[in-house]
């Protein structure tokens, strides 16, 4: 290690992982190995904690012993202070993994006469480093020397020499410095440390404090240049991992159910894509949380893990409310598929929320995340701030292939389509639930504003919440507009009655037809009998005629017989004539 540092190596500089969550991502691998890094910031910005975590993580996670030179706090004080973060310095010191050296400087005790140097400090440091084979060193904060010693000229020369000494020892060092008014540190330490400078900041905006970190410079390395928020909690420091610089995340074409069957159908019969972001927006009381909960329910039923961030209701409240619509979330909580993370938005700053969300996600490793609702975050930040936060969150989640559902409250007095913190352009799918006010009642209409990469339905459906869960019902489109709720029911009834009436009408017509047929048939009958009688009449005439002829013939022959006359033709005809 030591060999590396005499001259800047032509290849990329080697880095030492700090083990501080998030910092290694921002610095793309940690602090420069074998070089001093300056951490500066105001009082209470977390410098000491930062550096002690560097030492502790090194000792615990990377097998690199470390020396902590405290110029400010006594070793016992320091141990007590960091015990609240779960760092047992006593034990580590006992195991010879770390060494804490308190350097006491009291001006009242010291008289300066003539030339001197700080060889004593060097010897102490050297001894401390060698005694445990330290790879990491922290000097917190070396500026205290300036308050104890008067001869600034000597001090400056010695500090310069100190940094040379640290480099020659090949230790990765952190030097802390109090922030000055014009310069980064009061004593201009940044002049001496040229490799890496990290600035810590503690800002209070709207009574909410946010800690931020910025890498001012990092020679020979690419690094994130933004201000990154960081959080100090019972597990130490966590810095928000970087916003990914590129849009080259993995995408999945696997789809997962939204938990509402009818909604899945509207979404191209599939549901949401895994790893996509979904926004459910709507006015107050439209059932956004119910949609979110049913998505959570579906996720858990698939035996996947879901993390529910509740910014409005307490977990118990959500569980109770969802039970009323037939969802047993408690069971999922018990089975460890579902975890709630409830916090008031005003608990801390927006960035802190983001860090906290990150941490919770890292810990629980969910497949789906729900934020309900994001609108509440507005109370602690401006719209643009919330938007940037969400961009970062969505980014982070998509890299991890975590499906996320946000709910957002839209206000009626704003143009509906344009609110939602402007996140609508970021999300992959956007469900909007809208109040449809009609006929003296309010009903919910759900439609899909967008769903990227899906053949989704463009229909407005009525969104109903029943005690068996959520469902979507077809709405009625009439000349009067969209009908929902009781109007829809009424219409349905009307339609049913209409059908009955219609049926009856049909049967009446049928009967009439039958009757008509009967009339016609009888008419046909009478005509036929008329025809028959006419025919009979005609026949009668014929018969009579024939009979007449016959009778006449008979009579003639009889007469002839009677006369016994010659049967001669002329006579016969004569007779005939006379008879006529």
């Amino acid at each position, binding site marked *: 290690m030591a060999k590396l540092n005499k001259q800047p190596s032509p290849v990329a500089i080697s880095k030492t992982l700090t083990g501080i969550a998030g910092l290694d991502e921002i610095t793309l691998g940690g602090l420069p190995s074998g070089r001093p890094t300056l951490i500066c910031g105001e009082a209470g910005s977390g410098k000491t904690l930062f550096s002690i975590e560097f030492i502790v993580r090194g000792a615990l996670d990377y097998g690199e012993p470390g020396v902590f030179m405290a110029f400010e706090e006594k070793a016992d004080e320091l141990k007590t202070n960091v015990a609240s973060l779960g760092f047992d310095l006593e034990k580590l010191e006992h195991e010879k993994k770390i060494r804490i*050296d308190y*350097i*006491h*400087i009291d001006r009242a*005790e*010291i*008289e*300066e*006469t*003539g*030339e*001197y*140097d*700080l*060889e*004593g*400090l060097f*010897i*102490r440091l*050297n*001894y401390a480093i060698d005694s445990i084979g330290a790879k990491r060193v922290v000097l917190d904060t070396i500026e205290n*020397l300036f308050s*104890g*010693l008067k001869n600034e000229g000597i001090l400056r020369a010695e500090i310069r020499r100190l940094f040379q000494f640290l480099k020659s020892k090949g230790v990765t060092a952190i030097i802390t410095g109090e922030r000055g008014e014009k310069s980064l540190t009061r004593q201009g330490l940044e002049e001496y440390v040229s490799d890496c400078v990290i600035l810590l900041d503690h800002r209070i905006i709207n009574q909410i404090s946010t800690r931020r970190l910025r890498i001012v410079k990092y020679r020979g390395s690419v690094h994130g240049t933004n201000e990154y928020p960081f959080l100090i909690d019972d597990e130490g420091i966590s810095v928000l991992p970087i916003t990914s610089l590129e849009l080259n995340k993995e995408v999945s074409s696997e789809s997962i159910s939204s938990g509402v069957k009818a909604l899945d159908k509207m979404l191209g019969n599939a549901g949401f894509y895994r790893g996509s972001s979904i926004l459910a927006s709507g006015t107050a009381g439209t059932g956004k949380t119910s949609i979110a909960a049913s998505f959570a329910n579906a996720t858990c039923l698939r035996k996947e893990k879901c993390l529910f961030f509740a910014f409005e209701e307490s977990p118990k409240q959500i569980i109770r409310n969802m039970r009323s619509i037939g969802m047993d979330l408690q069971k999922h909580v018990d089975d460890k598929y579902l975890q709630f993370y409830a916090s008031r938005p005003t608990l801390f700053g927006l960035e802190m929320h983001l860090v906290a969300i990150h941490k919770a996600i890292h810990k629980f490793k969910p497949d789906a995340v729900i934020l309900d609702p994001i609108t509440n975050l507005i109370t602690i930040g401006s719209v643009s701030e919330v938007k940037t936060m969400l961009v970062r969150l969505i980014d982070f989640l998509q890299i991890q292939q975590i499906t996320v559902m946000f709910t957002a409250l839209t206000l009626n007095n704003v143009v509906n389509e344009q609110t939602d913190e402007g996140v609508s352009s970021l999300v992959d799918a956007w469900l909007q639930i809208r109040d449809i006010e009609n006929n003296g009642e309010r009903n919910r209409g759900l439609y899909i504003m967008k769903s990227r990469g899906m053949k989704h339905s463009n229909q407005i459906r009525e969104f109903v919440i029943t005690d068996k869960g959520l469902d979507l019902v077809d709405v009625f489109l009439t000349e009067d507009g969209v009908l929902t709720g009781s109007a829809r029911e009424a219409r349905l009834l009307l339609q049913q009655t209409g059908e009955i009436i219609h049926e009856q009408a049909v049967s009446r017509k049928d009967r009439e037809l039958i009757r008509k047929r009967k009339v016609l048939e009888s008419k046909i009958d009478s005509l036929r009998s008329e025809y028959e009688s006419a025919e009979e009449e005609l026949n009668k005439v014929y018969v009579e005629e024939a009979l007449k002829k016959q009778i006449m013939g008979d009579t003639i022959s009889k007469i002839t017989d009677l006369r016994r006359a010659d049967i001669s033709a002329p006579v016969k005809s004569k007779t005939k004539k006379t008879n006529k």
Partner: protein
Amino acid sequence: MAKLYELRLYVAGKTSKSVVALENLKKICEEHLKGQYSIEVIDLLERPQLAEGDQILAIPTLVKKVPEPVRKIIGDLSNVEKVLVGLDIRPRTTN
């Protein structure tokens, strides 16, 4: 005035500063504390672990352990007046 002065001079090797400091110290002691003092010279290069006990930063440092209060005088002790003040031989002048 039969106080016993226990003095420790911390040095790091035989540098010119430490040599000067030791010479100056001996001179001052002979002049002002004849027979009432003992001087222990500690070379931190040989015994670095001792640096922590007396909170030594600067070299050379003269530590007056006894009589109380503990005082440290850093530098080559070239300013006799300051050394005397530091050893509480002269009263501290408020300036």
